[in-house]
């Protein structure tokens, strides 16, 4: 957690602008159209700030199409390390004629606008600082190729913005070189564009008018920038995944695509052969079916999808639960229901995962909040799936999965894999026989053998229909009940093995937040706001897995009201919690919900909490 800055009495934003330049605390929004190649420019801009040692985050708000529609990329730089979304934009780069007017109208007073000169945006407002730039014209100086010119205009704005924000040109150049690594021609061209931009700005504008400045600090040293899907892919690779099956869907596709890239680099053996298989399936039913087949046969298997895929996988998930087959399923959630808003973020698949499939079923769900946890929980999921012989979900979201996040480098996992209770031919020689679904150890987890095990007692028959402890077909009521009760016990055992919550008890706090996943970043900033602005201490419970651990009740016991913060309409995690807690604790549960598809921000959380606390505290 970042250091908390000293308490201030009025809303920070207005204050800042009146008291001279704001150092390392601002947000930039680049408004453009997708497919216009601005992605690399934005990355270079973000990286430049990062390299100056300033904490930074980048969020891409993009449409569900391929090219030509409005897209907004927001960079937040914050000296205190707050990297949640911030609603207010300080510095707008208006490149999209279609939205430019609305983009400008939405700004608070005294903000900065860099824009394509011909859009004449200064006609709309008098209370903003306008910086018109003839991007198209400047680009013609570099190349006659019109397609290339469009791309280079993007790098020109990086030059302009860098100059105005006083970003060290050396850092921008480094970032640029990294971005186009190995492509000398692209580096050279883009460097020219960058220089044209900064030169133009230097010659044309008075940069002291811009109240936001970058100053070198030391808060990012040794850190990496990565998106959650890549982090999860690395977690899978280092967990020794051997079979990955998937079907393309936003926002999950990049998980398996990145995995494939890394695996080709690090998991090809000396003889040129792959020690893994990655298969693009024909749909999600096939993807999860393959993962389950592979898990049954002993591979560390996985698949990755989003809401619609989870819906399609329901039947197979029930088979995995009931026949007890390990596999790992990533759900990178987006806005539902149905196709919903496929390129917007939400945490609304919780119920679909926790009780996935018809009949009595309950599942393990890991919920990462950071890219570090995407890595670590992806890794852990394989151990848990094999330990508990069941499908294990990792529930990330679009915001975490597809955006770039700053993080400490991932730690190499040194433990031995937990491959679970698998009996080898040697074990069987010793034991003579085994009963596939018997609860030998009293933890609800049975033993299994893998197909191919060379021992006459190894084989057993797996089915999604009724079976007894010997895996023989059975419709006997007592066999059925015993088995279902053991499955329940297994789930109970899992409570002690899933990642425990992170809890922060604020001294004297009567109220607490409960959050999970990406809501975390808004919550911790809100904690700071509440402390500084309202002198209000709030505890914080960060849930990291379903089923819940014993800590949950304790947290509720120690507070009068617990605000569950989540990004969905129905308060789905709150629902799970209500079901779990005794009623006298459940009554303390309150709900803060943000579900517009835009990442939740701290001010929303703070305001919602204050309103609720004011509204009546029973």
């Amino acid at each position, binding site marked *: 957690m970042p250091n908390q800055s000293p308490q201030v009495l009025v809303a920070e934003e207005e204050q800042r602008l009146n008291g001279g330049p704001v150092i390392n605390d601002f947000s930039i929004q680049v408004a453009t159209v997708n497919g216009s190649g601005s992605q690399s420019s934005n990355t270079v801009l973000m990286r430049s700030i990062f390299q100056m040692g300033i904490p930074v985050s980048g969020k891409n708000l993009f449409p569900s199409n391929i090219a030509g529609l409005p897209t907004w990329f927001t960079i937040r730089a914050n000296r205190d390390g707050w990297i949640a979304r911030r609603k207010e934009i300080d510095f707008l780069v208006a490149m999209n004629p279609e939205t430019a007017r609305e983009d400008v109208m939405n700004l608070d007073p005294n903000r900065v606008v860099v824009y394509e000169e011909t859009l004449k945006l200064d006609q709309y407002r008098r209370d903003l600082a306008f910086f018109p730039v003839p991007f198209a014209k400047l680009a013609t100086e570099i190349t006659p190729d019109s397609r290339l010119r469009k791309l280079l205009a993007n790098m020109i704005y990086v030059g302009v913005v860098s100059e105005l924000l006083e970003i060290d040109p050396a850092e921008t150049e480094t970032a640029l070189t990294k971005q186009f690594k190995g492509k000398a021609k692209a580096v050279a061209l883009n460097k020219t564009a960058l220089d044209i931009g900064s030169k133009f700005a230097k010659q044309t504008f008075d940069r002291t008018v811009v109240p936001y400045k970058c100053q070198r600090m030391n808060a990012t040293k040794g*850190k*990496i*920038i*990565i998106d959650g899907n890549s982090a999860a892919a*690395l977690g899978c*690779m*280092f*967990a*020794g995944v*051997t*079979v990955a*099956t998937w079907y393309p869907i936003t926002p999950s596709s990049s998980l398996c695509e990145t995995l494939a890239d*890394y695996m080709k680099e*690090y*998991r090809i053996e000396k*003889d*040129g*052969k*792959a*020690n*893994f*298989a990655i*298969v693009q399936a*024909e*749909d999600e*039913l*096939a993807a999860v*079916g*393959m*993962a*389950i*087949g*592979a898990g*049954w*046969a*002993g*591979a560390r298997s996985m698949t990755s999808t989003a809401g619609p895929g989870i819906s399609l996988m329901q039947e*197979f998930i029930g*088979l995995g639960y009931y026949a007890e087959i390990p596999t790992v399923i990533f759900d990178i959630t987006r806005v539902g229901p149905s196709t919903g808003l496929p390129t917007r973020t939400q945490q609304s698949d919780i119920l679909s995962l926790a009780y996935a499939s018809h009949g009595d079923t309950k599942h393990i769900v890991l919920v990462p909040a950071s890219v570090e946890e995407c890595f670590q929980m992806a890794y852990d999921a394989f151990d848990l799936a094999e330990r508990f012989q069941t499908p294990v979900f990792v529930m990330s979201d679009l915001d975490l999965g597809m955006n770039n996040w700053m993080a400490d*480098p*991932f730690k*190499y*996992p*040194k433990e*031995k894999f937990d491959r679970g209770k698998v009996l080898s031919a040697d074990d069987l020689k010793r034991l003579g026989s085994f009963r596939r679904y018997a609860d030998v150890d009293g933890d609800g987890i049975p033993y299994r053998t*893998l*197909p*191919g*095990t*060379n*021992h*006459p007692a*190894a*084989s*057993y*028959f*797996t*089915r999604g229909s009724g079976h007894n402890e010997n895996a*023989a*077909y059975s419709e006997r009521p007592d066999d059925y009940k015993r088995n279902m009760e053991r499955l329940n016990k297994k789930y109970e055992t899992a409570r002690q093995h899933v990642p425990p919550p992170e809890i922060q008890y604020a001294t004297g706090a009567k109220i607490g937040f409960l959050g999970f996943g990406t809501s975390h970043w808004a919550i911790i900033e809100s904690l700071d706001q509440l402390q500084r602005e309202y002198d209000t201490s709030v505890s914080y419970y960060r849930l990291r897995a379903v089923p819940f651990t014993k800590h949950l009740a304790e947290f509720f016991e120690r507070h009068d009201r617990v605000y569950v913060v989540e990004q969905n309409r129905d308060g789905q995690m709150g629902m799970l919690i209500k079901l779990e807690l005794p009623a006298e604790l459940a009554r303390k549960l309150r709900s803060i919900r943000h579900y517009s598809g835009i990442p939740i921000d701290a001010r929303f959380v703070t305001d919602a909490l204050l309103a609720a606390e004011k509204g009546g505290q029973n």
Partner: protein
Amino acid sequence: MSLTTQQPPAAAPKNVNRLGLTMADYKGAESTLCAGCGHDAITSQIIKAFYEYGVEPHRVAKLSGIGCSSKTPAYFLSKSHGFNGVHGRMPAIATGVMLANKSLISIGVSGDGDTASIGMGQFVHLLRRNVPMIYIIENNGVYGLTKGQFSATADLGSKAKSGVMNDLPAIDVCTMAIELGCNFVARSFAGDPKQMVALLKAALGHRGTAVFDVISPCVTFNNHEGSTKSYKYAKDHEELLHEISFVPFFEQITVDYSDGETSDVELHDGSHIRLRKTDKGYDPTNKGEALDTLRKCQELNEFLTGLIYINEMKPDFLTLLNMTDEPLATLPQERVQPKEDDLREIMAELM
């Protein structure tokens, strides 16, 4: 199916196969199907073929969907692992199993409902990938387990027990398989054990998806007059492509096969299929001929049996994936977890 390279025992005792196993070693639990069900006949021939071929039971994975047919893997090879999954999705499971452990020999048993109705999508994509496995369709034109509704292989004009006529055309799984590039397509009849065993053994010698469509009458719901999938109808309308016999890789080829009356196809594992031509003369390695012949028979309401199409040159899916030789499932941690330096290198890239 790349099989064991074990040599045949010098002088094999009677009633055991080259592995020294008896037929009983290839049996399964007692069947709970209706007495006389075609599926039970197929089960018997699977037992026989695997016994005679000398397949190591522990290397076999038995897979199925849901249906009377899909129950049968419980009734053979009890020393093999079995997986009775969900309705129509056996192909995905089979693909996963083979990815995890390429040394396994997968035999899948499905029904016409399981494959051609709910399972059509997965069936098509299994064939497209050419996942190595034997895929048997126990084809009775109805949903046995749910009590006799027409399936998608029910023939146009076939009558249900209730008298209702099927007015949609049948899907021909063999034509479909050949069109989709499947390189081993055979059809047989539950009433013809000899042909079935020969074809099953040939399927064992093949590498790739071996589709084996077996007309398997449902005595309870589809064996009446007016049905086109009854024992009687099948017998009356069978159009035999060739007499077929099988010479496993571990047996000397003794008979001279330049004889004009027979032709020989060498399988992936070195075994041979010997085809004694009927009057037609038929080349199962010719895709066009195979498709034409199927189409013509269809038009005549005949059903063709034998090895309809074979092509031993096409690579299977696992070969395309260029996977390491050992089963992925059991690779040790050292091999599948990159080193600490690798992670460091990756992290450095991201700084």
